[in-house]
């Protein structure tokens, strides 16, 4: 029973209390880059979930054999390998999305969340909890990405998932899309607003 709870918390905690983006402030860079539209943010989220879960499992399986002095290199090799495979799969099956994400898929390799989870969790835990931890953190990251992308796309382009939601009549009455929302700095501000709201409801996180 105790292990079940531990597994469950590995999966659930990163969604809110221990969220990689808004609590640990990791992976901010990609959060700026891919959140101008919902679709790439969603695909980026899925890609990170997949890479994180599988690299966690692989590192966890290898954890007893990895020589300590090259463990970071081993982690990097595994992550880089998985990322390139994801990139190749996207190019083959989701060409339009891969064109949009272009270099950012490659940048998953340098996403701090990955190295953080591998070092902090997978190196010391069994494969199954590591898998759940990877899924949990990946979803925690994806949720924030999607929230940010939702606001940036809505206010910046007047669309959601590429569909026009702001009616044409608003534009005729002088409403204009906020061009600033499309630029990366606004992602930081939206993330900051999310952190603000999140801390209001989680008093124990307040400093």
């Amino acid at each position, binding site marked *: 029973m105790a292990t079940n709870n531990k597994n469950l918390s590995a999966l659930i905690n990163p969604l809110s209390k221990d969220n990689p983006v808004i609590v640990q402030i990791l992976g901010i860079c990609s959060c700026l880059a891919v959140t*101008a539209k919902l679709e790439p943010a969603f695909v980026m989220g899925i890609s990170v979930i997949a890479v994180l879960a599988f690299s966690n499992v692989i590192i966890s399986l290898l954890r007893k*054999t*990895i*020589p*300590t*002095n*090259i463990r970071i*290199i*081993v982690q990097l*090799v*595994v992550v*880089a*390998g998985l990322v*390139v*495979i994801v990139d*190749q*799969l996207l*190019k*083959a*099956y989701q*060409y339009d999305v891969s*064109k949009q994400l*272009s*270099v950012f898929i490659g940048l998953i390799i340098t996403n701090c969340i990955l190295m953080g989870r591998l070092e902090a969790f997978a190196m010391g835990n069994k494969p199954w909890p590591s898998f759940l931890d990877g899924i949990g953190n990946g979803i925690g990251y994806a949720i924030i990405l999607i929230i940010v992308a939702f606001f940036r796309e809505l206010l*910046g382009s007047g669309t959601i998932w590429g569909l026009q939601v702001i009616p044409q009549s608003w534009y005729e009455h002088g409403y204009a899309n906020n*061009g600033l929302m*499309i*630029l990366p700095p606004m992602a930081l501000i939206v993330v900051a607003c999310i952190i603000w709201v999140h801390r209001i409801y989680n008093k124990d996180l307040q400093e």
Partner: protein
Amino acid sequence: MNKQSNIYTIIYIVVLAVVVGAALAFAALSLKPLQVDNANADKMKQILASVHITPDKADVISDFNKYVTEQYIVNSQGERIEGNAFDVNVSEQSKRPVDQREMPVYVCTLSPNDVKYILPVYGAGLWGPIWGYISVNSDGSTIYGAYFAHQGETPGLGAEIEKPAFSNQFNNLHLFKEGRFLPIAVVKAGQAPLNGEDKVDAISGGTITSKGVASMIDNCLGGYTKFLQSLNNNQQ
């Protein structure tokens, strides 16, 4: 076995590198055909976009084969040379001196008496390459349509070149004035270019990308001067 020994470490990393390398090679090789198909279909889509045809994903290849009736390569003298136009690397060719270039031409027949010539262009924006396709009427001077794309220009600024609002400005502009090749100028709204060439409005905040578009058109279409003139002569 001592896991901290140098021998173990070296063997470990070598085995890991071989295993990961093999996995990557397998993935790359087995997915290659699909990726090439996707890239080709994407290129066809872009070529068709320059003649204002935007087929659904499933129809791209059949529409391309239907409308693009002929493809060939010309040199700077406007003479046809051997080779497969679709496989020409425009990026590489655009960097060569004009007289050594191999330049593709896609002949697009919209209806039996309505033939357009689609010419690829390639240049540099602010952050990376920009490229496009420009379709010219059979008089060799009037632009029928234009399509631009970019790799990583700033969204909302330089990236606006891919929007129809920008590319549609090129419709019906002229590349030749009194028999002389004058590329389209991209200038600040309200300004007029020096030599009296046709102009489009540049993008506010996207100055370097806009200039990139202008010099790309100058550089790439300049090579087609003789070819376009011969089209014009044939028609008269």
